[in-house]
């Protein structure tokens, strides 16, 4: 499975388009880490707990999108985009979407 945000993969061409696929997840961090994050706000800098949260969530969203693409018989997802929205304090929705296609050697 090729996952890319390019529209054209060098050396391959699109044999068929299979529509849009998407994967999303909503994550919230555990209270202890939320309290730590608000303490970290006094001195500033990176909030590692939140970075990990977003990283995991994004991987999960890509994973779900990939599963959807597999179920429609695609071997690549092109033009992948991400969108992130904060829903409440400490919870965020991460969405990944793209075009499922069947690629072949050009």
């Amino acid at each position: 499975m090729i996952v890319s945000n390019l529209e054209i993969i060098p050396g391959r061409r699109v044999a068929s388009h299979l529509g849009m696929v998407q994967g999303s997840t909503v994550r919230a961090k555990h209270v202890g880490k939320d309290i730590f994050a608000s303490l970290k706000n006094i001195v500033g800098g990176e909030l590692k707990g939140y970075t990990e949260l977003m990283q995991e969530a994004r991987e999960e969203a890509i994973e779900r999108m990939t599963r959807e693409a597999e179920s429609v018989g695609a071997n690549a997802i092109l033009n992948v985009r991400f969108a992130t929205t904060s829903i409440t304090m400490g919870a965020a929705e991460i969405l990944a979407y793209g075009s499922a296609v069947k690629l072949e050697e050009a």
Partner: protein
Amino acid sequence: MGQFLDLALFLLLLAIGYVAGHAIEQRHYASIRRRERRYRDVLAFPMRFAPDSVTAQQAFLVHGTVVVSADYFKTFVAGLRNLFGGRFRSYETLLERARREAVLRLKQDARARGARLVVCVRFETTTIASGWAPAIEVLAYGTALVPLGADARALAPIAGHETAASRSISRPV
């Protein structure tokens, strides 16, 4: 007495925020500059298409993400700034740091997986939490390209760091 304590606590937080926040920022900038030199051989471009000299190869998504927060002092100054308008210099450096960090992590991801060229780099910035305790996420993502066989030689002048010509490309201006 209670009011005095409140004021003292506020000033203490402000002082801690200023001193510690400044130290953390300086350390982060030093680390960013050091790693930017180390990852200079990974080229990242925002262009939509792969360069013409690059053909059949592996392509995969790479990304780098960072969540940063402003210190107490910066948040307070930003609150004051809101009254008068103008440049939020304290937030400019915060976001600049975050964006450079995200690109560095993107390059780190690319290099760990054997790529030296990333195209179609896009940024996304989201406010996860606002108010007195802001948290801002910066994401950088793009497609890493790994040349195959003969292509590796065709790409060498672009992504390699052997030739003088390519050195001038990869060096920041």
